[in-house]
């Protein structure tokens, strides 16, 4: 690109230069361009997940504006006279009638509706997966805790946006969804009935709901989402993006490619890819065919009805909860736990845990440093296991929300499925936690093993003495760095309850609690290989050599230090020097699993 500074500017170059000059004199945009044009962003496929969320949201806005031109948010009753034969002559709300018109009479209307709906499903899904990435890699640590909270609020808003939009066509399926919402809202103690009146403008279904949902759906929620996306991205720019561990990547630098031109092309192009894939889905896969469901009527209901995927966990929780003696009458007042627990308390706990996790982890880690290099999930066994346990609980609830579909597809008894899920919702997360934690610790041991002894090369060598060994290939320094770069994490140690003069220390109880939780987090751990351990393994082939002062072993480095395996050790055959063989032991008794 030639600019005004080029010796012989072209015509476009001169025009661009003049425009830039005009703008800069009025906006000082030059400073911003200088600051941002070459801003460095790290590259990794998992960083695209948040981008998918952003781009599907833009897709939602574009298709949504189209829909508002034809959709009528009104509950006035009309008689259908359009081309869709099965509904002709039926009485329905204008909302439903205009949705039919959008689908059958507006050219491209059905495509836009399906784009809008698919994009909404992908929007929520990509937020959830992006949040998982941030969680499992510890990207929520200081200084990004507040941005985690912003992201969490965005998740809640996306659910609200999805739910309010899902109900707008006023078909029988979404109407029954609203009815369930009404039932859930009414179960809330003291204010439930009034909250129901607040939402529906009187009794369910009333005539106010659709216009109200419309305002929520096209104004309130999108405005909040847009504002918070702005804040979310502002934080990303302010903090600079996190990066995965690797050679040359530290908490004090950011390694990657410049915004212009690489990310302008990659991220800009990726928007078109996301939009394109959604368009492809909308072209080939029917979603929410409301014309088959019919207008809302409080009497009929379809069997095998499913909400959109992000509401399935709530539906599943409602289905799992046993009824029976879970309703209590206190004085004259009714407390109905069979609804309150699954629909309000359980999601309340799940969501609170999610929102507060960064603060809990920081408290029990006593970590006040900034973190910009991400964790490998295996190096944080408790966190990873906790996250997987929550996911498993979520997944079981989603499956429970589809128990009728499972029953009809696999010819099972719906009662049996429900009983099994009632047990699984407790056992599944616990097992997942245990398994994931063990799995992470094993992966860490594998890392240690690799660092200490290198890769197996499958090359068997026979010595003159008749001894066989397998040659091990040591890791190069980059491979090794990935496996040793992380900090060892140990449980908090707290001071004594009383100071030297026997006075009780302030805040000791809180510290003791933190230390207890900290032990839960970090008691089981595998620490990264230290240079001393590594050297000992290289030179002596015996792990217990660790106890010896490291310096005395340093000179032996020159001896060759091959990683060799003796398949069958004959006693008396050990050569004392020169070989530096490593005897890889079948078990690793040097306490790699060091308990505090």
């Amino acid at each position: 690109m030639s600019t005004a500074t080029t010796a012989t500017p072209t015509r476009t170059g001169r025009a661009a230069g003049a425009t830039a000059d005009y703008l800069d004199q009025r906006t000082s945009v030059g400073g911003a361009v200088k600051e941002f044009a070459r801003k460095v962003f790290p590259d990794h496929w998992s960083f695209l997940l948040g981008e998918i969320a952003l781009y599907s949201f833009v897709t939602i806005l574009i298709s949504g504006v189209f829909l508002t031109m034809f959709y009528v948010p009104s509950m006035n009753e009309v008689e259908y006279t359009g081309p869709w034969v099965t509904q002709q002559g039926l009485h329905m709300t204008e909302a439903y009638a205009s949705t039919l018109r959008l689908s059958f009479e507006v050219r491209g209307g059905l495509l836009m509706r399906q784009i809008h709906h698919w994009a909404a499903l992908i929007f929520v899904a990509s937020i959830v997966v992006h949040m998982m990435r941030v969680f499992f890699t510890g990207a929520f640590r200081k200084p990004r805790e507040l941005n985690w909270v912003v992201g969490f609020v965005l998740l809640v808003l996306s659910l609200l946006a999805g739910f309010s939009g899902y109900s707008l066509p006023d078909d029988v399926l979404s109407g029954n969804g609203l009815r369930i919402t009404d039932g859930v809202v009414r179960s809330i103690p003291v204010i439930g009935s009034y909250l129901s009146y607040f939402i529906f403008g009187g009794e369910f279904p009333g005539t106010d709901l659709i216009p109200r949902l419309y305002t929520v759906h096209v104004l309130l929620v999108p405005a909040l989402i847009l504002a918070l996306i702005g804040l979310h991205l502002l934080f990303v720019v302010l903090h600079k993006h996190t990066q995965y561990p690797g050679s040359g990547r530290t908490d004090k630098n950011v390694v990657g490619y410049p915004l212009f031109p690489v990310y302008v092309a990659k991220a800009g192009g990726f928007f078109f890819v996301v939009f394109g894939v959604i368009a492809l889905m909308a072209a080939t896969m029917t979603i929410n065919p409301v014309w088959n469901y019919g207008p809302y009527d409080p009497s009929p209901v379809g069997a095998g009805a499913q909400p959109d995927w992000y509401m399935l966990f709530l539906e599943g929780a409602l289905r799992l909860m046993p009824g029976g003696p879970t309703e209590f009458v206190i004085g004259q007042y009714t407390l109905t736990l069979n609804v309150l627990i699954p629909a309000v308390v359980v999601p309340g706990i799940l969501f609170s845990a999610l929102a507060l996790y960064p603060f809990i982890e920081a408290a029990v880690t006593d970590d006040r440093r900034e973190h910009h290099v991400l964790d490998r999930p295996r190096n944080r066994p408790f966190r990873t296991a906790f996250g997987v346990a929550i996911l498993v609980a979520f997944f079981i609830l989603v499956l429970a929300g589809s128990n009728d579909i499972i029953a009809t597809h696999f010819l099972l008894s719906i009662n049996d499925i429900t009983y099994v899920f009632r047990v699984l919702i407790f056992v599944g997360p616990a097992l997942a936690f245990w398994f994931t934690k063990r799995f992470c610790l094993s992966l860490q041991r594998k890392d240690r093993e690799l660092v200490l002894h290198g890769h197996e090369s499958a090359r068997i060598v026979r010595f003159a003495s008749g001894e066989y060994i397998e040659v091990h290939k040591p890791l190069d320094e980059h491979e090794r760095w990935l496996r040793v770069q992380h900090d060892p994490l140990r449980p908090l140690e707290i001071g004594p309850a009383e100071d030297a003069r026997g006075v009780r220390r302030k805040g000791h109880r809180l510290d003791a609690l933190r230390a207890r939780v900290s032990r839960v987090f970090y008691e089981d751990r595998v620490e990264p290989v230290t240079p001393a351990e590594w050297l000992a393994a290289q030179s002596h082939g015996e792990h217990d050599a660790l106890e010896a002062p490291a310096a005395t072993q340093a000179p032996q480095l020159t001896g060759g230090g091959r990683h060799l395996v003796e398949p069958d050790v004959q006693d008396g055959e050990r050569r004392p020097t020169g070989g530096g063989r490593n005897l890889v032991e079948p078990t690793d008794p040097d306490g790699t699993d060091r308990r505090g």
Partner: protein
Amino acid sequence: MSTTPDQPHGGHQDLVVRPDGTLPERFPDPGMEPHRSRKSDLDEKHAKKVERQVVALFAVSVIGTLVFLVAYFTLPVGTPADIKVSNLTLGLGLAFALLGIGTAAVHWAKALMNDHEVVDERHPVQSSPEVREAAVQALKDGAEDSKIGRRGVLKGAMVSALALFPLAIVVPLVGEVGEDWNVGKFKRTIWARGVRLVKDPDGRPIKASDVTIGSVFHVIPENLEEAEHPLDEKAKAVVLVVRMDPRDLKETEERKSWSYDGIVAYSKVCTHVGCPVALYEQQTHHLLCPCHQSTFDISDGARIVFGPASRPLPQLPIEVDSEGYLVAQSDFHEPVGPSFWERLT
């Protein structure tokens, strides 16, 4: 870095033993890996090929847009078959228009643009001590200028005014948003003595003699259309009528008079969260809610057999009028539908 088995110590130089003979606590960062060149960096011919691919992808996009426009102007809509074709063609056109641009840009960036990684420094997020001090000073100066510390009444007046004014917006909103706020309406339906049971949706009354054993009717009150809010009333008043062999029917003394010759009427609104309980199983007399699978035994006072509901469905007491049609004896004896705080008040 050489890592062949013949030179097994290739990667060890970075581990420096300190002069005092000790080792560092941690391994040192080996620094950036060397850059690996791409094929298009080394071979100008290959780079040219990539360029042609990018051009072709942009061309695909242009074709996609043209397909979309042609389809828009030529394909009819209106019938389901037309819609299917139109949606598919428009959608595919749009998808290719978008995917062409997207893949072209990404391919260009990955294969042709400079891929040397750049390192930028990070600085602590917090501002420097001087800036912090200046900020605190600015606030102190401002507070001093406003003299707020010395004028307590002014402060109080300001806080009161600011705290009160939102009431002007909130009070009318809360006052109007819930209609009349009379939540007692949850407890009543428009069923009353003598109201005929009619079929949903055609509104025909039901002669008791026409109800055969094993049959099931979805029922609404005859006076539904006269109600002020028919849909609201229907949402509470829907009823399911079933006739079974009177010998199969287990009834309490109190409810013996609520049925008529094996015909029973139960509220169709689930006591769990309010879905219509619409699936009747003739053999077992079980009524299943398709939403959350609460199952009620209609032959035994709508006892709960399975699922999350915690109360039986309310029963509507029925009889026949002088012409032999089914009518209600009264409203339900308890509120229908899901539980709420004031249910028993």
